[in-house]
């Protein structure tokens, strides 16, 4: 099927694929605007996992029986799906992890301790999720790495001059920056981030936890060295994620976690490692979750990222314009290039009160520091409320949010 024959984006039809969207909250239709925290699951993902448990389940990679062989085959398909999703050259570039957090920790512990030398620096940005901050602090404290923070502008974009200034002494060994902010919705200029890093002799990682959900990602076009993603924001199950890495890096990197599956042979004296990517995958993997994620990737690719991005752009623009009309509501972050995440504050009302009062009206948003405390401090805030959109979100839901916020504002007067 080519792009011309792909059916038009039909949100009503997509919503039918998600059983949970039929639920009522306090007698009201669920308005789920918290997909950036974790997305809902389509029927195909649920069915794939249930089908595996009912018909085709055993441990993978080592069984010699029919069930194990079939399960291994089904599970390993997710590696191919991930390679296609990210446009990796082939499946050997994909390490399957339990989350993007684990993918980042893998790089910090393996590449960080194995290749970076004490005295070298790692650059992150001022708008990282804790998952792309804390592993580097741990590396700094254990391994003598300097941690540098690239500044952001008041509009919530990466300050590219400030970023380049951090690279200029050529002490930076690795840059690790978000591809899309989970708080501000900002898409960072990934190509330029990577290019500048390379220009100054550093490797580059992108945290794609948010970005990969909303737009097509091409790791080869980006020329990025490491790319971390998670499954549960991509309409797949929790407990599964992936790391893309250039093959020569994976080959040179030491294993991080030891255990079964990651070894070639073991004796009390000496153990040899399996080849990449398996040497990074210790223990029984998340088999059912891998099967579920494969179904999720097929599902979103069936819809197509062009259509998904267009739908979410429309929703985000509508949300920004509706929220701008409401007195006392301030949208946080005004990046030129942004995805379907909108953080805001309401004068005189704490973000937690706003979230609870939205929940009373059947609307689910996130409130708090969004696992990005240093960013909150940079913005001079303790917390924000955040509405985030998925493929199933509708213009009517954005309107429901605006109407509910106006009520809350009146309630607080």
């Amino acid at each position, binding site marked *: 099927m080519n792009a011309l024959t792909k059916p038009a984006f039909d949100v009503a039809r997509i919503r039918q694929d998600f059983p949970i969207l039929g639920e009522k909250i*306090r007698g009201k239709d669920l308005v789920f605007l918290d997909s950036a925290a974790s997305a809902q699951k389509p029927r195909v993902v649920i069915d794939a996992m249930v089908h595996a448990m009912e018909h085709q389940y055993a441990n993978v990679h080592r069984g010699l029986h029919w069930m194990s062989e079939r399960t291994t085959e089904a599970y390993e398909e997710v590696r191919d799906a991930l390679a296609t999703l990210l446009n990796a050259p082939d499946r050997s570039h994909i390490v399957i992890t339990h989350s993007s957090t684990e993918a980042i920790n893998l790089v910090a512990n393996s590449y960080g301790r194995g290749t970076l030398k004490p005295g070298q620096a790692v650059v992150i940005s001022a708008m990282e999720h804790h998952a792309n901050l804390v592993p580097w602090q741990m590396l700094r404290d254990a391994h003598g790495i300097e941690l540098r923070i690239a500044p952001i502008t008041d509009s919530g974009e990466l300050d590219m001059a400030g970023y380049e200034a951090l690279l200029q002494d050529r002490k930076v060994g690795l840059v690790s920056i978000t591809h899309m902010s989970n708080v501000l919705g900002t898409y960072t200029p990934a190509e330029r981030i990577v290019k500048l890093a390379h220009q100054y002799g550093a490797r580059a990682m992108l945290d794609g936890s948010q970005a990969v959900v909303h737009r097509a990602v091409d790791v080869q076009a980006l020329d990025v060295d490491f790319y971390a993603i998670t499954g549960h924001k991509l309409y797949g199950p929790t407990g599964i994620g992936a790391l893309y890495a250039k093959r020569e890096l994976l080959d040179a990197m030491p294993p991080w976690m030891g255990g079964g599956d990651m070894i070639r042979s073991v004796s009390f004296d000496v153990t040899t490692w399996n080849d990449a990517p398996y040497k990074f995958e210790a223990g029984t993997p998340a088999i059912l979750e891998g099967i579920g994620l494969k179904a999720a990737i097929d599902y979103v690719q069936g819809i197509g990222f062009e259509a998904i991005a267009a739908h979410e752009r429309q929703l985000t623009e509508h949300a920004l314009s509706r929220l701008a009309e409401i007195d006392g509501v301030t949208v946080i972050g005004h990046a030129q290039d942004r995805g379907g995440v909108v953080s805001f504050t309401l004068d*005189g*009302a*704490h*973000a*937690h*009160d706003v979230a*609870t*009062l939205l*929940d*009373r*009206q059947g609307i689910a948003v996130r*409130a*708090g*520091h969004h696992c990005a*405390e240093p960013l*909150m401090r940079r913005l001079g805030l*303790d*917390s924000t409320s955040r509405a985030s959109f998925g493929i199933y979100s509708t213009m009517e839901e954005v309107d429901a949010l605006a109407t509910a916020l106006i*009520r*809350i504002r*009146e*309630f*607080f007067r």
Partner: protein
Amino acid sequence: MFEDLRTLYQDTIMQRGKSPKHGQRLAVFDAEAKGDNPMCGDRVHVFLRHEGDHVAELGFEARGCAISIASADLMAEAVAGQSDARALEIANSVFAMVRTGEVTDPSLDLLRPLAAVSEAKSRIKCATLPWGALQSALAGSGAEKGSVEA
């Protein structure tokens, strides 16, 4: 017109959350403690002044949501005039009340608006934040201070 919102955010919570009566540091105090909720950045600083063996006055400084501030404000009135032991008893009752939604001690009717938080599980910690600080302040006050620190 706000019936759906008022089940949790009753008038008492809204008024005291917006304009607390006891939301200031005491000029003179003999016990104090801070509480914070790292999940949302809310914080409270509780100040106690004793007269003889009872709490004469409680004031607080807080940055937080309507529920945590209203809870602190109600707390100031609930413990004023009470012995430390009774104040701790009241705190324990509040910890139970916000979980069960039941007010078993009729003398604590003042605190009834906090019981509604039991049906908003994610907000229980907002209501208990000042009461946890009160427990710390009482544990560190007067003669007990040395033994706690030792």
